[in-house]
């Protein structure tokens, strides 16, 4: 009997130590983190006094360091950011903790969803205070049933007064189905047609943005230009996906209307499918490029490429086209697109349950409602920002020119587009719909499947992605 007891004990000890081993390994980094935080807090408490109710730690969820650099540029409370970019100290002693997860493959959203769902039970310093979202999925978070993004009025921001100078469509985008604004953006992303000057001269005899603009006023007119480009051995665009945003963002009804489980494919999407098929068959796109954001697509932005133009907003020109261009600067120019559109934009939201509402309000106001700050961002980064009067001033500013665009002032072209954007109604299903319709119809454009099969594939794929979707309706 004794023996049994001993052996039992030994086993117990072994198991416990084994499990303890697992546990401690997982816990220790967090432990050391909090310790660190405690010590830094302790040192700072002596030198600064902050609002009594406000928490000490502001957790901001985002997907890259863009928002951090913007905050550092214009938020006047910033003292310094730690070298690894994870902690920014403010003048009142509180700290911004940056939680960065990549946007690719839905990683950012997955992490954010997890913390938002557990928001109510989290300790004050672990709560999400501010998070960012992109236009493609902003509605998922501004949805009033989800209730994770605070209405701006609850923060003490009056959108009609404080945000009056923002472009209207950005305010619509950040509002829920009742029109209550739950987010705000510093960016405005009107898109333009960016084209190669040398190709324009070769084919049309001029590279003047006004002249080229006349050749691309709408899709019908543009087709003639595409034919001319083809005659000289050039492609108009790189891929069928390039034109999608122009159609996709001007749909008349949202993909899924509130409360319904039916996806309604808009006529604009069908137009995109029909036009793209026609353009692919006519050889106006580079046939070796499939979709966007891949190596083949990047290569078509190089000097060896035969692609005439791209449809990009400001960030596309600076962060996508410019790094991929290997020729001399000044080879590109911008002009009006065949259809006004908006592509992208990051929205700032205050998370429901935040313990730093005052800071959230200050940051949102500093970044999205202050004309001087927005002008500063635009001048420093050539980002087109969300302030009508500031942008109008820059658009007519003779000194504000882009070297990459051969001395052209792109804002002169952006501003009128931004004024005319009618943003498509949003739904929480937009991201999947946009992604999957491009993918499934890619096979159709390349002649792999028939039209009906592509439709069927879209239905299968979308119902896999969103189990609550029961039906897909196609326009007649």
């Amino acid at each position, binding site marked *: 009997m004794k023996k049994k007891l001993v*052996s039992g004990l*030994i*086993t117990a000890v*072994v*198991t416990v130590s*084994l*499990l303890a081993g697992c546990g401690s390994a997982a816990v220790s980094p967090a432990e050391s983190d909090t310790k660190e935080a405690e010590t830094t807090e302790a040192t700072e408490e002596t030198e600064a006094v902050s609002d009594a109710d406000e928490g000490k730690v502001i957790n901001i969820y985002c997907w890259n360091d863009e928002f951090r650099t913007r905050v550092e540029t214009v938020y006047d409370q910033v003292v310094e950011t730690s070298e690894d970019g994870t902690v920014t100290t403010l003048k009142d002693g509180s700290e911004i903790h940056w939680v960065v997860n990549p946007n690719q493959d*839905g990683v950012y959203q997955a992490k954010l*969803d997890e913390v*938002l*769902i557990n928001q109510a039970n989290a300790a004050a310093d672990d709560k999400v205070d501010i998070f960012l979202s992109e236009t493609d999925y902003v509605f*998922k*978070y501004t*949805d009033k*049933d*989800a209730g*994770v993004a605070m209405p701006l009025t609850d923060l003490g921001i009056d959108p009609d007064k404080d945000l009056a100078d923002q472009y209207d469509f950005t305010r619509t985008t950040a509002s829920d189905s009742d029109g209550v604004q739950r987010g705000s953006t510093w960016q405005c992303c009107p898109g333009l047609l960016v084209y190669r000057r040398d190709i324009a001269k070769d084919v049309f005899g001029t590279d003047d943005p006004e002249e080229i603009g006349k050749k691309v006023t709408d899709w019908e007119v543009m087709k003639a230009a595409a034919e001319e480009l083809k005659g000289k051995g050039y492609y108009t665009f790189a891929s069928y996906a390039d034109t999608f945003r122009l159609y996709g963002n001007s749909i008349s009804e949202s993909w899924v209307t509130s409360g319904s489980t039916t996806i309604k494919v808009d006529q604009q999407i069908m137009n995109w499918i029909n036009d793209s098929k026609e353009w692919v068959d006519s050889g106006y796109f580079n046939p*070796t*490029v*499939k979709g966007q954001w*891949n*190596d*083949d697509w990047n*290569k078509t932005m190089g000097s060896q490429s035969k692609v005439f133009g791209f449809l990009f907003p400001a960030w596309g020109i600076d962060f996508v086209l410019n790094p991929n261009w290997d020729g001399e600067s000044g080879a590109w120019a911008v002009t009006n697109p065949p259809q006004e559109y908006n592509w992208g934009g990051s929205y700032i939201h205050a998370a429901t349950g935040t313990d730093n509402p005052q800071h959230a309000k200050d940051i949102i106001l500093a970044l999205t409602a202050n004309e001087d700050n927005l002008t500063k961002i635009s001048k420093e980064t050539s980002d087109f920002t969300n302030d009508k009067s500031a942008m109008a001033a820059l658009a007519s500013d003779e000194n504000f020119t882009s070297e990459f665009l051969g001395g052209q002032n792109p804002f002169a072209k952006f501003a009128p587009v931004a004024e005319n954007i009618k943003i498509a109604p949003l739904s*929480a299903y937009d991201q999947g719909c946009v992604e999957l319709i491009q*993918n499934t119809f*890619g*096979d159709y454009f*390349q002649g*792999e*499947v028939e039209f009906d*099969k592509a439709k069927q*594939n879209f239905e*299968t*794929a979308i119902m*896999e*992605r*969103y*189990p*609550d979707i029961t039906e897909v309706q196609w326009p007649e």
Partner: protein
Amino acid sequence: MKKKRKSINYGKWGYIFILPFFLTFFIFSLIPLADTIRYSFFEYYRSGIKEVGPRFVGIENYVNLLQSDMIRYAGNTLILWIIGFVPQIVIALLLASWFSDMRLKIHGKQFFKVVVYLPNLIMASAFALLFFTMFSTNGPINSILISMGAIREPIDFMGSVFGTRTIVGFMNFLMWFGNTTIMLMAAIMGISIDIFEATDLDGCSRTQRFFYVTLPLIKPILAYTVITAIIGGLQMFDVPQILTNGQGNPDRTSMTLIMFLNNHLKSKNYGMAGTLSVYLFFLSGILCFIVFKMTNKNDPDVSKAVIKSKKKEQRRRG
């Protein structure tokens, strides 16, 4: 009772020593496994950030899955697996018998063993990314073929069903044939040298020796290799996932069962995903059973049926 206690039993120490493993297995594997099966009877997913369920729906998930394209994806998986496995086992057997052949005296045997195993060390996703770049329409393979004058227009490898499937199969072959070679070599080297000498004395040709001596004697290991390959094949997803960006292009012809499962997990659809896992579980069980039966029919060590029939024979003779 008392008598039994007196006999010394060391067996229990064995149990005690493997207890920690079973405890961890129980906590980290068995409970999640049971949970998977449980959730397969529930409707449980996330719409946006709103959780739906869990709501008990009986076998609705099972019926829905059978009505979906699951069978088609199972077919895809099978085809992709066969394209990779057939060359893999043939080349591996060939290499294994060469490497373990005393008479051949291959120089640098160790070196080649390492080289054939190397592809297995690369992460599947990195390997897939490499192939994706190599075979893309503007990639090096196309440029080489064009500059050699073999083709005029670049071939769209990933745009055709044949191309994509062949590339996936080829990659799986490349990654796993080394592993199989090493395994089979160990099996062949386990065969007593005496037997090979005897075959030589009896004037056996090399092919005869391979088919009549080596192959039957390595059957248990061969069965093991096939079973593990089947299970691995059923779980195949990394290569086609990366190669086709998770879409199983073109026209979902390279969508494997696990990629289908991953699609459900994008919406955190634990119910459907659980159901699919249960199907997979049964499928692999059945496949393994068939292989096991097939390869061990005449193996006196394992099959009880053989022992029984032998006993019968003996009785008849006696």
